[in-house]
């Protein structure tokens, strides 16, 4: 065997080991019985339910506004486009604590726009949705833009020459054709939203049933109930993995067009 393929295989082995060992350890350290017990514990199911509800609402908002926005970014060339794209993607590289401070500075009671809305978002479930949307939207928009950009132009042009409006082309051709790319973005954004911790804690606080999502519940348990924290982590890994996998299966099976890639 020549050395380069060996280097490739070795690198993959190291990457795989490093990335999977912590995840595997979560499961090796919890017995199924403990997992069930900790789920039955007060607060665990509340946190899980809250995480699912808030991340679903956030995802809904992201898709609703992000899809047309991504289409615009993918199909138009205008002055300042690069700047707009950079601004949209910026939250990707912001530390969660910075996101939390930013949300407080903008929407908190003392924030720039705080006078009118502040107390209705801070420390409320709506505040959780707000934090999740802020940190996860760029994952979707970025991916959606790439998916739209990689569409075969001739399809879109054919649709237009056959008399379809842009709105119709967007809805009937572009979205189905970019389906798998959009789904991939959705899965990434969802995973990010489910895992959000810092911005949620700073902006929305931590209160059982109202603002305590699964990552916050894990952190609260860490000090006194490591097993409980592990079990809840295992559940979160399971949910996230199921999400990622179902998206892969959906797009792999070509149920949504899957022509983008």
């Amino acid at each position: 065997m020549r050395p380069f393929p060996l280097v490739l295989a070795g690198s993959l082995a190291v990457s795989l080991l490093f990335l999977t060992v912590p995840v595997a350890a979560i499961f090796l350290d919890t017995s199924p019985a403990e997992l069930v017990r900790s789920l039955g514990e007060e607060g665990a199911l509340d946190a899980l339910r809250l995480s699912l509800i808030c991340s679903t609402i956030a995802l809904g908002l992201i898709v609703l506004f992000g899809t047309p926005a991504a289409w615009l970014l993918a199909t138009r060339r205008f002055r300042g486009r690069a700047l707009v794209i950079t601004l949209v993607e910026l939250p990707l590289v912001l530390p969660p604590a910075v996101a939390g401070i930013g949300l407080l500075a903008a929407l908190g009671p003392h924030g720039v726009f705080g006078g009118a809305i502040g107390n209705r978002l801070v420390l409320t479930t709506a505040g959780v949705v707000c934090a999740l949307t802020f940190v996860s939207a760029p994952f979707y928009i970025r991916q959606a833009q790439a998916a739209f950009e990689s569409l075969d132009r001739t399809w879109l042009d054919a649709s237009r020459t056959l008399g379809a409006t842009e709105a119709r082309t967007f809805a009937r051709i572009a979205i189905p054709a970019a389906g798998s790319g959009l789904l991939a973005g959705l899965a990434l954004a969802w995973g990010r939203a489910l895992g959000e911790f810092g911005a949620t804690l700073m902006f929305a606080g931590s209160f059982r049933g109202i603002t305590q999502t699964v990552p916050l519940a894990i952190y609260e348990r860490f000090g006194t109930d490591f097993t409980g924290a592990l079990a809840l982590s295992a559940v979160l890994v399971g949910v996230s993995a199921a999400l990622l996998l179902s998206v892969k299966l959906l797009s792999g099976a070509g149920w949504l067009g899957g022509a983008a890639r």
Partner: protein
Amino acid sequence: MWRAIPVLAAVWALALAGCGGSGDDTLTVSAATSLKTALTQYGGRFEDAKARFSFAGSDELAAQIRKGAKPDVFASANTKLPDELYDEGLVERPVTFAGNRLVLAVPASSDAGIASLRDLKKPGTTLAIGSETVPVGSYTRTVLSRLPESESSAILENVRTQEPDVAGIVGKLTQGAVDAGFVYVSDVRATGGKLKAIELPEALQPTVAYGVAVVKGAKNGDAAEAFVDGLLDGDGKQALDEAGFEPPPAQ
């Protein structure tokens, strides 16, 4: 793009050099968030080693030590956690080195009209407290448990967030996210006038005692002991006084 790499590498190298290595002359201290102002001060004056701090809720820090983390010193906002770690053989014998007072804190600019515990019962008042697991949260629950049941449940009804450490409570207060919160008097002082402390009735005041211990197997044992000694009598004690801490309560 590739030309940027040497520049990035240089920035990295500088940044790393600035951080310095963690050689033998460093002392790592895991300490309760409420000790931040005082210990950062003390760390600057401490000469035996370069002190590095990790501030978080005492319960989180204790959990890290139980999971095998090895700071040189553990300073907690209660005596229970160091005692437990001592019983588990993870730290040397702890000593009580400071006291503090729990107070009701409100933003200095607040117009919510909160002047005493009684005002916390009003519907619509919003409160931030520590979570059950962190010392400040457990002291708060001690105070509330000394009130009549109807009063304490009315107050708990108004809690909007249970924070993992005092920094979270202080942050929610200074941002005006809540009307009031329970923190230590030293935390209020550290905000430099942004918060106002409302004293609790003496009968409700819990005994807030801070315990410190050298962690077993500390890399820098001598410096760790010197650090603890200074907290009892020396620069550390002085920094604690300046930050508004009290002498250790009589056991």
